[in-house]
């Protein structure tokens, strides 16, 4: 894409923030859909009205890091802020969906620190990731599992 057709999140910082916040609220909405916490219970935990929760989820642009944390914790979730370099300096492709990071983390067995991550990588990724994932009741897509195993077996040794 050229500058005349730049990604909509590249035109202003506010637009980029909006998309990041929209990715976040989508994760909250999915959690609410699964249950057991309802919109009403979430509102009670946050000490706001259900209407306010609905308003925030429908218009996430004003989310601040503090309120994002409050919403995530109220749903028994946590959040991480990830800075990354996706080789797209002019932001022609838009931000990577935060759900992608979350899914990758789960597929690696939800490592809690760099030691667990390292173990997962050195033992072929999927083997450790699979056992942890089963413990955490995470369902892995079989095709993805095969790809990870295949890549792990052909990956160069990490010095």
């Amino acid at each position, binding site marked *: *894409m050229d500058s005349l*057709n*730049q*990604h*909509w999140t590249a*035109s202003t910082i506010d*637009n980029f923030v*909006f*998309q990041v916040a*929209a*990715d976040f609220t*989508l994760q909250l*909405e*999915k959690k609410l*859909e699964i249950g057991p916490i309802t919109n009403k219970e979430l509102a009670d935990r946050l000490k706001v009205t259900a209407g306010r929760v609905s308003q925030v989820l*429908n*218009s996430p*642009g004003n989310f601040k890091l503090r309120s994002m944390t409050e919403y995530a914790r109220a749903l028994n979730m946590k959040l991480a802020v990830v800075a990354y370099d996706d080789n797209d300096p002019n932001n*022609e*492709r*838009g931000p990577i*969906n935060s*759900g*992608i990071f979350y899914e990758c983390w789960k597929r690696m067995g939800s490592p809690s620190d760099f030691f667990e991550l390292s173990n997962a990588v050195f033992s072929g990724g999927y083997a450790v990731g699979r056992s942890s994932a089963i413990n955490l009741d995470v369902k892995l897509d079989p095709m993805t599992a095969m790809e990870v195993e295949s890549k792990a077996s052909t990956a160069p040794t990490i010095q």
Partner: protein
Amino acid sequence: MPSPRYVFTLVSGHYFRTRSIGFIEELTQGGLDAKQVYGSLTPKTRSTVDSRFKHWLDGEIFDKYFHRFDGHYSSCFTFKWEERRIPQRLYGFCCHPKPKTEPSFELCSLMYFDTKADKTNYTILGWINQLSVHPLVKLAIGQQYPEFIAQGGGKKWTH
């Protein structure tokens, strides 16, 4: 009555990897209002709709934001949001516009805007079904995706 003139344009400001979104307009009599409505949204609402677009382009699945329909209307698609608690909808249809070189590539061509009452507007879905196989609509899409007409309009949309 003059023949209808259909024009297809890709939505600007988005990056298309494996999916794309565009608008079909009818220049003779108007009536296909999705592009005009999208262009006149307030910046805040536009951000909401753009974030919905991006989520679909990213491969997200979340019926509260967008979904296809069942049965006779299986190629029809809608993007959803709310404005002052009134449900808003953009309706169109999905197809595979690059059947030869990239068969899994999906295009969502949006045509109509509507505010949702109690039930789904099946009248609009019926019109979309008719237009989705209209030779001049296929020709319009073929201006952007030549394979679409070369292959007879692409195969029926499947997930």
